[in-house]
């Protein structure tokens, strides 16, 4: 394994953003740490923030482990990240409007037509439609990793319904409650405006036919969904209704919600439901989760859907390789944040390279998520690598490969005390009339020693993320 960048220590010195945390940990006796950790877990369980894990069996209401050691960015580090993330969110939305419109980027030969139009996430049903304010992806979750003091890479974009923002907010809440002194000693940018900004973003994309203060709802698949907690949490914070498909209905050219005072017209739906399920008259006819007729109302300007159906074509892992190209093509700028070099197994030359270097690479499914169906070459046995090789050869177009990055590590509380563990970062960029980003995000940490997989479904935990004020 190559050496990784430790965000707290550089050449034996404590890096400035972590200076005060060093005193904090030094002065904390082991018993206090254990007691606080237990307190944190009890609090998380009491508020009910849990995360069901798909496909692993066990306790469906397992807690995501919370690590009390914060992850810290300086103001200038964040300023650059913020510019890079916003730039990316603008480019991704410009791409979506384009590929459902004239397809200039394809005509210009900057991205292969087949990659876009034959993509299973490309939605024929919204061709020719420009959503309010030209926004398809209203919440862009950009997964970022760090490999050095000034080296940040985007691992992937999440343009549909990125989850996890509740952990960002709850982690902060938790830290402030348990360690109020830390927040007096450090000047930490607040993240608690997120729900106001989200509400403002959703309001700003009300449909053309809405001539009053928009009514916003969150549409959830229901309490069996692993992110249900987050859906209800965000609805509470924003003061909007949390609804399921059966609570909404179409009448004439509008969508209404059933309430105790009779039907109430709905203008903006923040849906946490995949495209395939939102309208059985347009997509999967067997879906019981959606609202029959919703898409006809949407396309005729009677309601807004966030994210817009079809947004998924921008966050496909094969399309990802072209995001820097989108930045140049639509914005005429150079990308501030780099992509991780990526080989597309669908290309013959790339495939050859990948098969020759499989043991060194990370290989992912194009449409995969949650850390499933991936190979981390250096961490796998020979037999596992060979088994994966067969899967790639059988369907090369379904895989991309990336070098195994030396992800940065931050100090983390472990059984033996404090030890470095690898982390990534997911900030949540809001796109409406304006583009907004709260200073912070969700830091995920791979709690197993040496592990590079930070997904909560694969044993990852979360940390509070600090951005220090200037």
């Amino acid at each position, binding site marked *: 394994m190559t050496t990784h960048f430790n965000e707290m220590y550089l050449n034996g010195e404590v890096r400035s953003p972590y200076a005060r945390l060093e005193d904090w940990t030094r002065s904390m006796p082991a018993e206090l740490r254990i007691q606080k950790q237990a307190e944190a877990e009890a609090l998380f369980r009491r508020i009910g923030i849990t995360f069901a894990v798909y496909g692993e069996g066990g306790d469906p209401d397992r807690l995501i482990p919370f690590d009390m050691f914060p992850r810290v960015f300086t103001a200038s580090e964040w300023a650059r990240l913020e510019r890079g993330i916003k730039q990316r969110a603008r480019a991704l939305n410009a791409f979506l409007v384009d590929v459902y419109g004239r397809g200039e980027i394809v005509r210009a030969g900057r991205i292969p037509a087949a990659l876009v139009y034959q993509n299973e996430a490309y939605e024929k049903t919204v061709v020719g439609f420009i959503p309010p304010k030209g926004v398809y992806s209203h919440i862009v979750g950009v997964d970022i990793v760090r490999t050095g003091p000034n080296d940040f890479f985007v691992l992937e974009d999440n343009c549909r319904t990125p989850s996890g923002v509740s952990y960002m907010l709850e982690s902060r809440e938790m830290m402030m409650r348990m360690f109020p002194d830390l927040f007096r000693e450090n000047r930490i940018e607040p993240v608690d405006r997120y729900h106001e900004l989200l509400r403002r973003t959703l309001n700003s994309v009300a449909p053309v036919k809405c001539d009053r203060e928009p009514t916003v709802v969150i549409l959830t698949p229901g309490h069996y969904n692993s992110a249900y907690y987050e859906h209800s949490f965000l609805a509470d914070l924003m003061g909007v209704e949390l609804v399921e498909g059966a609570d909404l209905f179409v009448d*004439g050219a509008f969508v209404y919600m059933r309430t105790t005072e009779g039907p109430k017209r709905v203008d903006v739906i923040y849906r946490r439901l995949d495209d395939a399920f939102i309208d059985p008259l*347009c997509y999967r006819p067997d879906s019981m989760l959606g609202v*029959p*007729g919703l898409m*006809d109302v949407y*396309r*005729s300007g009677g309601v807004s859907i966030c994210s817009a159906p079809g947004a998924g074509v921008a966050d496909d892992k094969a399309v990802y390789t072209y995001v820097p190209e989108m930045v140049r093509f639509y914005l005429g700028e150079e990308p501030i944040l780099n992509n991780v070099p990526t080989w597309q197994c669908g290309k013959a030359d790339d495939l050859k390279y990948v098969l020759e270097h499989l043991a060194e690479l990370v290989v992912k499914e194009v449409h995969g998520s949650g850390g499933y169906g991936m190979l981390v070459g250096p961490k796998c046995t020979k037999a596992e690598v060979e088994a994966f090789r067969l899967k790639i050869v059988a369907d090369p177009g379904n895989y991309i490969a990336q070098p195994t990055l030396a992800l940065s590590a931050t100090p983390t509380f472990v059984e033996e005390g404090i030890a470095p563990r690898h982390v990534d970062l997911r900030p949540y960029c809001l796109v409406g009339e304006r583009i907004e980003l709260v200073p912070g995000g969700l830091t995920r940490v791979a709690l197993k020693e040496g592990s590079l997989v930070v997904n909560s479904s694969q044993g990852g935990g979360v940390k509070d993320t600090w951005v220090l004020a200037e």
Partner: protein
Amino acid sequence: MLLLIDHVTRYRYGHPVRGVVQSHRLTPSRFDGQQVVEWNVTVSGGTPGGAFRDGAGDWVQGWTIKGPVDEIEVRVQGKVSTTDLAGVLRGHRESTPPLAYLRQTPATSLTPELLDLATRATEADGSLALAHALALAVSQAVAYRPGSTNAKTTAAEALAQGEGVCQDHAQVLCTIARARGMPARYVSGYLLADAEGQAHEAAHAWAELHLEGLGWVGFDPANECCPDDRYVRLGSGLDAQEAAPIRGSARTVGEERLDVTVAVLATQQ
């Protein structure tokens, strides 16, 4: 030719229903081969909802029926002037890229048998000759037999049993054309039956294949021809379900019965 259409779809429910929602593709396409003279759609007890022209050029109109009702009647009456363009969809305004019609759906998923049917034709990929050969292969592999299949029959099932109706012919053709790399779509519409009763099924369906230089061209394996001035085109999709003239939902536990009558007549200009 001037075609008169009278199309009635009647839903009868065992128990009264409320809150029925429908999405219609029941308006003739705009292209050089047909021109609407008169067109009227009524839905008993219905309120018209959102309407728009989609990326494929189809006019989509939503309807809601508040209820409670135990019967809904959708009636389409109209007059369309048609011209024979030998199947070519000339002058049709649409913006969906043809490449988006290469994907298969559950109803058109490719099996070894369908692939075999696709590759038996030896004509060059992308050619008009190949399109004709594939359409002919479908006519020969699936015999016309009313009642032999239902609305949910897939292309693979229709081929396996070797018989079906226009819906099956169109879906099989879409499947094998896509297997040969040719964008293909399912088209729904109306067809004038001739005096000998040769052309069957007044509520009709066929397929369109996309050809370099010609654009979208219709092929009707059920009648072994390309659509001409006896055809009225309504809308398209990747399969029968997507292209359905009426997609509807009723939250009902009871029985639903469906009667459809279609009359297409030719009249003097």
